[in-house]
């Protein structure tokens, strides 16, 4: 059973270019998925369609078995969403924000909200507009978590936060996932933070999906091949070459391998997630680290 499923999903604003195009992904229930891609890749568009803020222009999207645009009433109580700029009612006090959550959501967990807000170090009378950026994002996350959602969607949750607030935010998320086993999708253009908490990734670039799957499987299947300077064509007959780079003496390939690489001309090496992501996004130099270390 998938928590979120899209089929040929696309979105264009007005008559302009596609913000997201031909996107078919499946996010399994219980997974923690990172939605990766540079700014403008369509991450926010995908998430906003998933929470019913945007109407799809093409294809279909299903969230917890419902169409978010047409069946918002059934879907909304079961999801939590924190938007990139996490808008809050600045004129409300913290206490009113909890009352807000309670009045607008049938299954709002007031005790959970109060417990979490107790930790951010501000009194219930404190005005939301006067909280720090980190406190505001914690408040936005708290509101989403207190809905007791089956699916939590976070749009660039840590981009605007300083390192400490970022760590706290991610820790809160990890803790909540461990407690409830909910499905989480979070978008980011930074890989580093997410590797620790995610088990699936989806890579979007140029408004299209480049790669999707469990991180373990992705790591297992991608290899960096180094060998004497040669054409990538022999390799691409068997494996999918994602990115190649050449120096006068040697060729380096990042491949998605179907099975083992038996060709003895190539020295295979495991790659980390960040290298894979960068290769799919089309930037980052492919370098054999062993070489670098040899020079160092």
């Amino acid at each position: 059973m998938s928590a979120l499923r899209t089929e040929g999903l696309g979105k264009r604003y007005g008559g302009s270019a596609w913000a997201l195009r031909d996107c078919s992904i499946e996010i399994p229930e219980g997974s923690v998925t990172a939605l990766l891609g540079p700014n403008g890749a369509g991450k926010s568009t995908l998430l906003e369609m998933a929470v019913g803020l945007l109407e799809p222009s093409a294809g279909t999207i299903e969230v917890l078995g419902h169409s978010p645009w047409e069946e918002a009433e059934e879907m909304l109580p079961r999801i939590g969403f924190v938007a990139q700029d996490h808008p809050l009612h600045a004129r409300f006090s913290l206490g009113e924000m909890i009352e807000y959550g309670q009045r607008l959501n049938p299954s709002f967990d007031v005790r959970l909200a109060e417990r979490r807000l107790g930790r951010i170090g501000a009194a219930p009378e404190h005005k939301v507009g006067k909280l720090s950026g980190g406190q505001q994002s914690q408040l936005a996350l708290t509101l989403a978590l207190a809905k007791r959602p089956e699916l939590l969607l976070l749009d660039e949750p840590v981009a605007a936060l300083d390192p400490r607030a970022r760590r706290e935010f991610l820790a809160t998320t990890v803790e909540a996932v461990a407690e409830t086993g909910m499905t989480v999708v979070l978008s980011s253009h930074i890989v580093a933070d997410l590797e620790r908490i995610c088990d699936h990734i989806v890579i979007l670039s140029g408004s299209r999906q480049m790669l999707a799957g469990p991180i373990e499987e992705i790591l297992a299947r991608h290899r960096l091949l180094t060998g004497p300077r040669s054409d990538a064509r022999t390799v691409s007959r068997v494996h999918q070459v994602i990115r190649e780079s050449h120096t006068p003496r040697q060729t380096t390939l990042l491949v998605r391998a179907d099975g083992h690489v038996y060709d003895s001309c190539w020295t295979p090496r495991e790659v980390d997630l960040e290298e894979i992501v960068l290769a799919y996004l089309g930037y980052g130099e492919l370098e054999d680290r062993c070489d670098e270390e040899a020079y160092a």
Partner: protein
Amino acid sequence: MIWLGWRQQRTEALIALAIVAALAALLIPTGISMSSAVHHESASAFAARFSSLGNLIAWLTLIPGLIGVLLAAPFVLALEHGTYRLDWTQSVPRRRWVATKLGLSAASAIVAAGVLLLLLTWWREPFVELQGRVAPAVYDSEGTVVFAYTLVALALATAIGAVWRRAVPALAVGLVLYVGARVFVDTWLRERLVAADTAVWSVNHKAPNLDKTWILEQFPADGHGAHIPNYSCQVGAGGACALPTLHHGFIHAVYQPASHFWSLQLTETAIFGAIAAALLCFAGWWTRNRVA
């Protein structure tokens, strides 16, 4: 959802209340002294003492417009600040969010207009004896049009704000359009809403009593109805045209009698009310379908 709607609009509703309260503080003391004076003083003494105060009411017709655009602010601010995106991802479908917010602002506008109407009607009571209710300067602070004016100002600012999503310019443009619409209706449309009466009398006879009517036009004419040039009316008793130097001919007067007050009021209320309803529906539809 009503809790949220009210919480977001509390400040503006209190400002509207403060405007009405300030007006009440101004009008209630003078109203009390007028209502006692009208029974003890002669009509001319009363008019001499209070007519400048009575003319003040022409300015009060701006207040429904101000209150209307003010009450549009919470809706537009929610769009400008992006808090609607938080609201729409709670468990309330946006359809209900839009309906509740617009419904509450319209309800507040109706309540504010009602209080304003009661206050102005009570205050002007002594003047009705003198001036009637149909003349342009006083017509628009009484009757059902006060509701329609408030609602149309609210709806204009709301519809512009739904598309523009910037509160300050939307409210300013809304107020300007409201004043424009009012000027158009006051100076051109209103006199055409209900067919006016015409009176014709010979200059040698006594003029009819046009007191407490709204005179649209008066001119001297010959027996065939053609204008007699080079004469301009002097206002005589009862507001009728008097021409002591003209010895032959007729005076034509076109006017709305006092009895047309309610048909004028209801027609104008229906027009502004329909425009307000259409604009609010448009704002709701646009917000529901075009805003993301």
